[in-house]
C-alpha cells in the first residue's frame, strides 16, 4: 500500500490502515522522543499520544508535507509539551520541595540510552545530561541531527524553520555543550 492509499484509508477511519501506520512508524517515533525526553516511560507515553493525535486529526492533514514529516512534527510538539511540563514541575519543586517529593527522583535521574555500548556509558551519560540542559529548540535540533543522524532538510521541515535557522541552532547548541562539558574535562 502506498502513502496516498494509506492516507485515504486512514481518513476513512479504517483500523487496519491505522495499525499499519503505527507498525511502520512506531520505532522511529519512539526513538526520536526517547532521545529528546531521555526517559523510556515518558517516551512511550508521548509516542502513544502522537499516534492518538494522528488518528484524531488525519482529516486535517493537507498533504503539504510527507506523512512522516507530519507525524514527526506532532511527536516533536508532544515532546516539547512534556519537557515544558517537566520543567514547570521541577521549578515548583524547587520552590516548594515538600509539595511533590517524587519530583526529586526525576531531577536526580541519570539517563542512559539502551543503544549505547558499555565502554561509552559513562561519557554518554554526561553528554546526555548536557544535551538535556540545552534550551528546548537547540535540544531538539541537536538531538535529531547529531544524535539521531537526520538530515538538515528533514529537521527544517519538522521544526518548520529555515535551514539557516537550524544551522544556527546547531552551532549555538555546540557552543553551549562545549561550555557545559568543560566541567567534565577539567574536574
Amino acid at each position, binding site marked *: 500500500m502506498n502513502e496516498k492509499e494509506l492516507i485515504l484509508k486512514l481518513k476513512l477511519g479504517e483500523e487496519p490502515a491505522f*495499525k499499519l501506520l*503505527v*507498525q511502520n512508524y*512506531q*520505532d522511529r*517515533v*519512539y*526513538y526520536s522522543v*526517547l532521545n529528546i525526553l531521555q526517559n*523510556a516511560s515518558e517516551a*512511550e507515553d508521548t*509516542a*502513544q499520544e502522537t*499516534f*492518538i493525535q494522528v*488518528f484524531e486529526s488525519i482529516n486535517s492533514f493537507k498533504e503539504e508535507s510527507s506523512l512522516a514529516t507530519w507525524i514527526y512534527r506532532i511527536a516533536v510538539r508532544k515532546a516539547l509539551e512534556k519537557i515544558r511540563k517537566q520543567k514547570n514541575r521541577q521549578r515548583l519543586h524547587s520552590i516548594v520541595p515538600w509539595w511533590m517529593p517524587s519530583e526529586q527522583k526525576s531531577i536526580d535521574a541519570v539517563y542512559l*540510552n*539502551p*543503544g*549505547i*555500548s558499555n565502554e*561509552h556509558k559513562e*561519557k*554518554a551519560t554526561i*553528554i546526555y545530561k548536557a544535551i538535556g540542559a540545552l534550551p528546548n529548540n537547540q535540544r531538539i535540533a541537536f538531538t535529531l541531527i*547529531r*544524535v539521531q*543522524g537526520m538530515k538538515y532538510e528533514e529537521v527544517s521541515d519538522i521544526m518548520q524553520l529555515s535551514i539557516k535557522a537550524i544551522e544556527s541552532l546547531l552551532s549555538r547548541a*555546540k*557552543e553551549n*555543550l*562545549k*561550555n557545559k*562539558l*568543560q*566541567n567534565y*574535562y*577539567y574536574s
Partner: protein
Amino acid sequence: MKPISNEQLENDLALFSTMEVVNAPDFFYTRLSARMEKDSISNELRFTIKPILIICALALFLFMNSLLLKEDTNIVKTNPNQNIEALAAAYDQNISN
C-alpha cells in the same frame, strides 16, 4: 577554565554514530489501542453523564425555588394581625380597640 575544543566535542559526539537504534517496546500497538479504547469509553461516559448532571442540577434548583416560593406564599397567607397579637401577648399587652 576554558571551553573544550571543537575536536574534543566531535570525538565525544562520535559515540552516537556507534549507537544502536532502540525500537519501541513490545506490544506497543496493543497498549496504544487499549488506551484509545479507554479514552473513547471515558469520553462517551463524560458526554452521557454531563447532560444527566446538568438536568439533575436544574431539577434541584427548580425544586428548591418552588419550596421557597411555597413558604413565601404561606407567610403572606397568614393573617398579619396574628403576628402582632402574638407579640402583644408575649408582653402582656392588649391590642384590641
